[in-house]
């Protein structure tokens, strides 16, 4: 069944069709949300909320964007909201920012599994806007044009944020990616 068929069936009350949409797009939504928030308990809540929001807006989904792009937009917006909530909570409870209390694993000592943790932790050190660009472009694999469309910014902005983010990641992950010599 195509996405359009599934959306139409779900609108007619077919729960199995909506379940199929969830099954089909969980990987894409997980990549976006967990890329933005890291592997944390809130990530799954946000992921569920993405699909609940989709369900509520099925009637107004006209298929102008692909379902994947539509879901990614919801996922990015909800993830950015969650990051704002985190910041408010930190301010309220005078907690230290993530950068200060989350120790990065030692890049030199990382094995294959540790490598992923290290990269994830490094992405979490980026500011929210740069992180969104890195997640959409480098993890989700959207083109720069699609990334710009999802974030509602010009392509040039995407490219400059990407360049800045890569510079920061390069510094953190240098021991992992090698010095090229």
């Amino acid at each position, binding site marked *: 069944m195509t996405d359009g068929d599934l959306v139409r069936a779900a609108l007619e009350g077919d*729960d199995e069709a*909506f*379940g199929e949409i*969830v*099954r089909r797009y*969980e*990987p894409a939504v*997980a*990549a976006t*949300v*967990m*890329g933005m928030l890291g*592997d944390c308990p809130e*990530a*799954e809540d946000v*992921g*569920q909320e993405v*699909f*609940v929001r989709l*369900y*509520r807006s099925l009637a107004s989904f006209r298929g102008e964007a692909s379902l994947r792009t539509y879901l990614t937009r919801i996922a990015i917006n909800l993830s950015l909201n969650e990051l704002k909530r985190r910041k408010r909570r930190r301010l309220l409870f005078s907690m230290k920012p993530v950068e200060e209390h989350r120790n990065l694993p030692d890049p030199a000592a990382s094995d294959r599994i540790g*490598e*992923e943790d290290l*990269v*994830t932790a490094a*992405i979490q050190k980026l500011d929210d806007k740069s992180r969104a660009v*890195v997640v959409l*472009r*480098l*993890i*989700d*694999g959207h*083109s*720069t044009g699609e990334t710009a469309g999802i974030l509602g910014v010009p*392509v040039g902005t995407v*490219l400059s944020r*990407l*360049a800045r983010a*890569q510079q920061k*990641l*390069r510094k953190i*992950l*240098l021991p*992992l*990616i*090698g*010095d*090229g*010599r």
Partner: protein
Amino acid sequence: MNKRMMSLLARSLDGDLTAEERGALDAALAGSAELRREKERLVALRAAVASSRKDSFGPFFQAKVMERVRHDRLDAGGETFLGALARAFRPVAVAGAVAVAVLVVSNLAKSDDISVPAAFGISRAASQVIMESPVEAVLEGLS
């Protein structure tokens, strides 16, 4: 290292170079081992970031979403507990109001007095006793 070439190198990985820029970058890459190393580092960095992708929220995610969707549909279909209670008791409330109205009309029909106490079947004498008794006396009677 040439700053412009570094910028072109970063952009080249996103397929965003003009033919002229591509030519300039290729020439610079051919002539600079350091720039070639930088390209290797960038490619490795992007591969490492891409490989950190997580594809699942964990077990039973689909079932959890469907459960939330069903709850959401119930809420939107919108019967809250208080709403259901009000709907269940509506016939009782209407019957009660009708009974009170019948009682009031019946009492007023039997009485030669048109007043609130008469409507509720209280005689004029009884209501006078109630209205004219001093409050202190009533309170003393209670204590």
